[in-house]
């Protein structure tokens, strides 16, 4: 067993954690498991690729890699725009689908089924537009740096870990220190009372969709950068995302991140110990154990 599994696990865990924060926030406020969340990761990655490609067509200097990374300025610029667009996509899906069902007072199972449908439609649309052939942000190859202790990582990987840390701290501060975060927590505990106290609940729902989609977009772009871009990119992460959100405790931002790292490390360990074909089973096992032993997760509040 090589210690490198720790680095692999941390990197996978960072992406899972970032996506799981989106899941935990939307779940805590909308109160249904949105199975289309994975598609927001995929769409984020493809949108960034399309925008970055367009920028590259206009100015090739923006494609020139920023040393020591594998990508040029086109990608950071595309990331900002893709975050906005992924957020708008989530708002559009809510306005067209989930919002209407909510207003009708539809049961949770209807919303979950609708999210299955949305997931399928969004993924098919990606395959239709971009085909299912894997794509990459850049063709440049990167040399892994020795970090000591037998660990190696590429500059892209280290940057992704750093960006994840910044994003998690930013969201945590937003939730705990700002008026908007307070309103979001209030809506998640008791939407009716939040309304009585003057919180515009529908606005907070839009905020949470946008925030969840933005984080999904970042996670999708990182996955695309470090692995590859595929229409199934987000879909294949869905189980780990939900395992992490539930292990962390629904509504808890630090919980989702920590649990994401736990899931990522467990997957990497399982690959080392029993083989790569067992990777997918890890999230399932974690999910089942948490639901049986501690349904409220690590940091969730008691029901």
């Amino acid at each position: 067993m090589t210690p490198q599994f720790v680095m692999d696990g941390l990197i996978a865990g960072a992406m899972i954690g970032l996506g799981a924060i989106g899941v935990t926030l939307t779940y805590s406020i909308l109160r249904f498991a949105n199975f289309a969340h994975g598609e927001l990761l995929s769409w984020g990655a493809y949108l960034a690729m399309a925008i970055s490609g367009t920028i590259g067509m206009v100015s090739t200097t923006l494609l020139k890699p920023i040393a020591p990374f594998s990508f040029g300025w086109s990608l950071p610029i595309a990331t900002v725009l893709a975050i906005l667009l992924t957020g708008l996509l989530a708002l559009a899906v809510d306005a067209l689908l989930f919002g209407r069902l909510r207003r009708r007072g539809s049961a949770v199972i209807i919303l979950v089924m609708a999210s299955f449908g949305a997931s399928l439609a969004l993924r098919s649309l990606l395959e239709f537009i971009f085909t299912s052939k894997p794509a990459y942000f850049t063709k440049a190859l990167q040399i892994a740096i020795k970090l000591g202790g037998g660990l190696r990582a590429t500059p892209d990987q280290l940057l992704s870990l750093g960006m994840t840390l910044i994003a998690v701290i930013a969201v945590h501060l937003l939730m705990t220190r700002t008026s908007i975060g307070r309103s979001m927590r209030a809506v998640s505990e008791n939407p009716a009372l939040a309304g009585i106290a003057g919180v515009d609940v529908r606005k907070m729902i839009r905020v949470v969709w946008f925030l969840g989609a933005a984080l999904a977009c970042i996670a999708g772009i990182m996955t695309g950068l470090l692995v590859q871009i595929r229409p199934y990119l987000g879909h294949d992460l869905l189980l780990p995302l939900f395992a992490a959100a539930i292990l962390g405790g629904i509504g808890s931002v630090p919980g989702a991140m920590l649990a994401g790292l736990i899931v990522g490390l467990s997957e990497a360990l399982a690959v080392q110990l029993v083989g790569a074909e067992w990777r997918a089973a890890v999230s399932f096992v974690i999910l089942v154990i948490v639901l049986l032993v501690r349904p409220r997760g690590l940091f969730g509040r008691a029901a």
Partner: protein
Amino acid sequence: MTGLVTTTPALETRALVAGYEPDLPIVRGVDLSVAPGELLVVLGPNGAGKSTFVKAIAGVAPIHGGSVTLAGRDITDVPAHRKITQGLAFVPQTENIFATLSIHENLQLAAAVLPKPVRPDRIRALYDRFPDLAIAPSRLAGALSGGQRQMLAVARALIVDPPLIILDEPSAGLSPKIVSEVFEMLQRINATGVTVILVEQNVKAALKIASRAVILVEGQIRHEGAATALLDDPILAKLYLGTGHARNHSREAELP
């Protein structure tokens, strides 16, 4: 009709119909007018629709007919979150504080409807008024005792200095000593000119502080009159027992 009316009511409902499903009205045509400065108590047996009535006024139970006017302004279709800024404060019967937020956060959240510069002053004024809450503002509200919870719920509702406050059974589940504290607090609030609508099961205690009372039975007003007169009126006992449900028997002890 020409004007015998001299003051605009603080709150008025006309033929109000409300309920959770359109074909199952719980509140069935309630006409109620509350004068400014009044302390009105709404009585009635369990399940009479008292909570649904006040929730409909506050915008958290669906209205199917009739109208609600606040100081002359029609607020029937105003969404719940805008009622507080229009001067209607509501304290629901249960789950009336955010248990996962600290005491201070509960007040900050409520203060968010005010202009930014006045928020700290308003919160400080409430801590002065409810010193119990100021002892440990960073405590989770979920850890408060029943009486303190009601204090926080009322403090939250008062943050905008509303001309009207509606409370749904603020004494439920409290010990008699705390009940009288809560009622004294409501009297003090009312004495500052705030109109109070109080839904209560604690009939005797509520009638002692109220100026007027209405009795709601099966979603309709069955009796309306001065609180003091009702206090020794056998009609009260009769109306309560008239519904004949076993679950109301615990209330008999409180009746005159």
